[in-house]
């Protein structure tokens, strides 16, 4: 679990190349490289821009580490929910 947390942090740091924020281009690269299995529409730069605008809580046009973690949290919740629902459905069926 500690390794997983380190991966969350190092992925952001290597994408932002040491800066505090991700600009649109680095964010798009990160999404395309890292989330193509979990998310649809990672090929659409329009969709990624929309998502970035949704995350940008302080409206500075960039994605901060905090805003990036919001995305991770949101996705993790979705995946976790779908897991619980499918395992519940499986136990209901049996």
């Amino acid at each position, binding site marked *: 679990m500690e390794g*997983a947390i*380190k991966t*969350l942090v190092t*992925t952001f740091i290597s994408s932002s190349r040491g800066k505090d924020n991700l600009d649109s281009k680095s964010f798009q690269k990160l999404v395309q*490289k890292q989330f193509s299995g979990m998310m649809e529409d990672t090929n659409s730069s329009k969709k990624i821009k929309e998502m970035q605008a949704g995350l940008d809580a302080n409206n500075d046009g960039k994605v901060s580490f905090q805003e990036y*973690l919001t995305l991770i949290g949101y996705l993790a919740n979705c*995946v976790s929910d779908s897991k619980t629902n499918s395992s519940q459905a499986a136990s209901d069926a049996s």
Partner: protein
Amino acid sequence: MPSELETAMESLITVFHRYASKQGRSGTLSRRELRELMENELSNFLKSQQDATAIDKIMRDLDTNGDGQVDFEEFVSLVVGLSIACEQCYQMHMKNVAKK
């Protein structure tokens, strides 16, 4: 093939559910399950496992809906908090390296 980040997220989700399903309500961590998770999975990050009041405090902080259990959404706050601490540590480390 899942990416490195997707694999990391999967493993966080799996860890949560492994501990959450041990006893009682299966989708949430009880105080005891949270303690076991912290003892076994976060022993390098958190040194306060032995301290019962620290566990109580973490439990209270995480349990935003006050039901005495930590659900996955509340667990994500712990992951976010640890990631922020880890990132700050890393930045400090890099600054120190740059100074030398």
